[in-house]
């Protein structure tokens, strides 16, 4: 029983990285922009956050710095694809290459650095409950914040006027433009929000999850987050489900290996991808549903004149 509680706790912890990044990417994709630079942004933010944490010793300042770094990169990407109409996919790929190289360069002197020994987090009162305490209430505050953000984003998209405008822009930027909405500015804001979230996700990896900085440390998490938004048909609740599912199956397969289960480890390593794709494809197998949720203008350039 204790094992299960620990598994749930580890799932929340490892799923949070994907949840944060994918929720951010969901917003900018809802506005019609695909940012393939997510991995690069996460890497740059991971070193920005780590360096800040080393110098200040404060997680929150580190997250703020990472968010700012993510926003700057995303803004550069946004200006290129929104105003200069460069190809979104090519520009995104260039950004992810740039991010990998730049973070390696900027992080040279931080590979040997360490953060102070971390304190444990608990929610007073709840953390001592049997089973649910260790399973749910001993996480870094960012874990709960990610869940709160998912709810806030769902509310924003489906219950607020601003969210409606954002979705309208993603569906048909021409119509939104005709109605007088500043399509390009709103798209830029959406892209920057995505950058901030990817940034926070990157810092979560370096500052909270692994406590270290090494070159290329995100190891593909940005790409998984990108795939997740698509498989989750751009719905916040599904993104969250997919992120925890991926984290959960990853932890479960490692646990099974540790128990000495007679399955090849290469097969088990594949499981998280397989399970996540399978579940998300099954729940969104309705073609109409995909059509309704997929932003119609995604990936396409918009010429206002």
């Amino acid at each position: 029983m204790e094992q299960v509680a620990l598994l749930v706790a580890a799932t929340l912890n490892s799923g949070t990285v994907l949840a944060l990044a994918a929720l951010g990417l969901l917003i900018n994709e809802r506005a019609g922009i695909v940012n393939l630079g997510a991995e690069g942004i996460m890497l740059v933010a991971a070193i920005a956050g780590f360096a800040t944490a080393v110098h200040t010793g404060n997680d929150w300042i580190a997250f703020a710095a990472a968010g700012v770094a993510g926003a700057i990169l995303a803004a550069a990407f946004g200006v290129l694809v929104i105003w200069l109409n460069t190809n979104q996919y090519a520009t995104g790929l260039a950004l992810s290459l740039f991010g990998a190289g730049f973070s390696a360069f900027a992080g040279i002197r931080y590979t040997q650095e360490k953060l102070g020994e971390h304190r444990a987090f608990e929610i007073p009162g709840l953390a001592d409950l049997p089973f649910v305490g260790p399973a749910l209430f001993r996480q870094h505050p960012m874990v709960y914040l990610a869940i709160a953000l998912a709810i806030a984003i769902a509310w924003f998209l489906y219950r607020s006027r601003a969210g409606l405008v954002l979705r309208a822009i993603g569906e048909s930027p021409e119509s939104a433009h005709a109605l007088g909405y500043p399509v390009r500015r709103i798209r830029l804001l959406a892209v920057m929000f995505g950058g901030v979230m990817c940034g926070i996700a990157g810092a979560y990896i370096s500052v909270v999850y692994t406590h270290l900085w090494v070159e290329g440390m995100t190891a593909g998490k940005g790409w998984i987050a990108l795939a997740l938004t698509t498989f989750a048909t751009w719905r916040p609740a599904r993104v969250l489900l997919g992120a925890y599912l991926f984290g959960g199956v990853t932890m479960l397969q490692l646990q099974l290996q540790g128990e000495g289960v007679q399955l090849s480890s290469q097969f088990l390593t594949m499981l998280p991808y397989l399970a996540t794709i399978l579940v998300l494809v099954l729940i969104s197998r309705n073609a109409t549903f995909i059509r309704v949720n997929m932003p119609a203008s995604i990936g396409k350039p918009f010429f206002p004149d």
Partner: protein
Amino acid sequence: MTRLSKRSFVQLAGWGSLAALALLAGCSKEEKTTTTTAPAGTTTTTTTTTTAAAPAPATSASGPLKIAFAYVGPVGDGGWTFAHDNARKAIEKEFGDKIQTSFVENVPEAADAERVFRDMVSQGNKLIFGTTFGYMEPMLKVANDTPNVMFEHATGYKQAPNMRTYDSRTYEGAYMAGVIAGGMTKTNTLGVVGSVPIPEVVRNINSFTLGAQSVNPKIQTRVVWVNKWFDPPNETAAAQSLINGGADVLMQNTDSSAVLQTAGKAGKYAFGWDSDMTAYSPNAHLASAVINWTPYYKKATQEALDGTWKGGGHTWWGVKEGAIDIVSISDKVPADVKDKVEKVKAGLKDGSFVIWKGPITSNDGKEILAKDAVADDKFLGGINFFVKGVEGKVPGADKK
């Protein structure tokens, strides 16, 4: 129609220019990392007339011997590549202006490596070290084309008249770490985060377990594979799952310090691997099993300078030659365990102690080595089973 095609043309141009940009960025990065760190301008000795026309790797006294290193990772990885670069610095200090060294970091284990080796040759390097398994084929190719240059390849098995291989007995470090782990565990459960299930790693896991069992026969070792050499988030997840499963001392055969840091966060113990990792988590760190490449690099350089360097052959050094050590043993380790480690180390040094000596049984009950039988290097090179006390099976082992 015209408008459409115009647009796609613009798109194409955008793709092309971006690709070119990315390519440029890649190239310039490569060039930037080529760092020559030698006291330049010391070439003032006499000039002899013999040129390097003969295939013999004799370098005359005309200027310093140029030595180049190709690294798979960044020098600052704190592990594998860091250890190689420390040895490079050591020989530079030792031989002074008789040699001139340079290195290239982050050379991928692919076709690109061949270009790097050719560059090194054209820059006049006479002795070239390639420090990862994946350089084997590209290095062999370049070696065949340039018979007057000496090539040294780490961890490989293919040789040529002007190329030889070298490796270190990392399993001796794993065994000594195991002795400490056996003395420190309270749950009698150890955990290992494995990278890729190849004989070297399996041998390390087994040796770690044998070391632990030498002080505590009840030891069980759990293994989790991440199927990569370097993936900090997954290494963290793997370490966490081992801790959740009851392991309280962890070891890793991966390239980052993530496992050690995770153990630190959870209040458990772990080891440093390849390089001294004390600083990453002083409370969790029990000791570091380190590789010291300096003795071998010194020997190779000396031979190259003397003109006695010979290609072919494989060198596999361990504690005896000073290539493997266990360092920075924590104060938390009780004195009797420390003594035991010192005894093992001394035994390995003078040859009176052998790790892979029977009786050894595999974890499915088969006797692998009979009593007092000693494993030879060929046996050690092909280990694909777990010894008794390790849980599970080596992935893919039953297919052979």
